[in-house]
């Protein structure tokens, strides 16, 4: 392994510009995290929040069969059969109880990032995304719509940010800065994520202004057509990763999705699964 990101008993994982310090007493567990998030380690970053991992023997940890995310007494409580976690936004600290496996903490990271993003107008979206010529493109769709296929067909000059979970946030520092922040200077930036899909390959740790959102479907010919804003918002909302049964956050996610489609061009992309589809992108 090259440069070690662990400092003592911690590793800092930075996704979407947000650094999380994960602490554990198990060097083996931290080494596993280093391998899994190798492109997203940021040992020098100032952590935005901290997570302590308490490892326990494999087995059921909570009675919750399905994922439960709720806000109580100033803390987010996250429970699933294989994990119990809590995260306190005020102190920016959290704790996870899980067995030594990579999947539980990966789920908690997705959830915590989604909760933070919701507060600031960003979204986690079931979408592949890629950067080409300095612009990011999102390809959203349900399972089977073609996210993995279009990722696999990406030309060599494209950088794959993810084939599964796209990370979208507003970089308000860029708005009005004169830098290229996408059409209308809206400031939406797509980031690479280590949250892998069927390609089982983490995305590149890169970022670029979002140029367009494509709603995917496979068909017998390549076509591209604009989507009216209300349909685009509905379809985007269907693909947003959102875990909490919380009315305030539902409203925030709704507003965020409406803002995205108001600012970013949205197209329905019907495609034949071969590389010619990329001639339509951009």
């Amino acid at each position: 392994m090259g440069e070690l990101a662990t400092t003592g008993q911690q590793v800092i994982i930075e996704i979407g510009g947000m650094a999380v310090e994960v602490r554990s007493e198990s060097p083996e567990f931290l080494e596993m995290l280093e391998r899994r998030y190798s492109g997203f380690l940021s040992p020098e970053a100032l952590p935005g929040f901290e997570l302590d991992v308490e490892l326990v023997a494999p087995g059921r940890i909570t009675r919750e069969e399905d994922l439960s995310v709720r806000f109580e007494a100033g803390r987010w409580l996250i429970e699933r059969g294989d994990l119990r976690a809590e995260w306190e936004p005020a102190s920016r600290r959290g704790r996870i109880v899980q067995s030594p496996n990579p999947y539980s903490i990966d789920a908690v990271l997705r959830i915590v990032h989604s909760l933070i993003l919701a507060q600031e107008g960003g979204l986690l979206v079931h979408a592949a995304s890629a950067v080409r010529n300095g612009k990011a493109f999102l390809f959203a769709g349900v399972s089977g719509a073609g996210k993995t296929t279009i990722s696999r067909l990406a030309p060599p000059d494209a950088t794959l940010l993810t084939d599964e979970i796209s990370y979208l946030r507003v970089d308000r520092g860029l708005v009005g800065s004169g830098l290229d922040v996408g059409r209308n200077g809206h400031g939406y930036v797509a980031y690479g994520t280590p949250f892998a899909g069927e390609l089982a390959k983490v995305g590149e740790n890169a970022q670029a202004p979002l140029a367009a959102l494509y709603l995917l479907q496979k068909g017998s010919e390549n076509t591209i057509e604009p989507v009216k804003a209300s349909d685009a918002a509905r379809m985007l909302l269907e693909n947003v990763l959102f875990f909490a049964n919380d009315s305030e956050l539902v409203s925030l996610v709704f507003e965020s999705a409406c803002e995205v489609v108001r600012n970013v061009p949205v197209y329905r992309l019907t495609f034949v699964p071969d590389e010619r589809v990329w001639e339509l992108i951009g």
Partner: protein
Amino acid sequence: MSSIFIARATQVAARSLDGEMMIMSARDSTLFTLNPVGTVIWQSADGKTPLAEIVERKVCAEFEVDPAEAMKDAEGFVNDLASHGILVVSGDPIAPPRAAPGEAR
């Protein structure tokens, strides 16, 4: 006939996109897109204007509709939205909700 009063529920998020009103229930995440007539009724749901007056003065004034048919459709519409917690329907005027202190996050 007794009056019907309607008010927008508090646990909803609403947004007009390209002239179409989209409403999401923050309670169960159900998403609605209102047609132009529905949008007029929604925007007029102030809790103090009777539905019949909204239909007469807004709906019938802006759209070519039969008044009796429009009233019947409006009643169905508001009851449908009420069943999803989007609108509050009452036989009496509805006072605006008082702001409750929220828990800081």
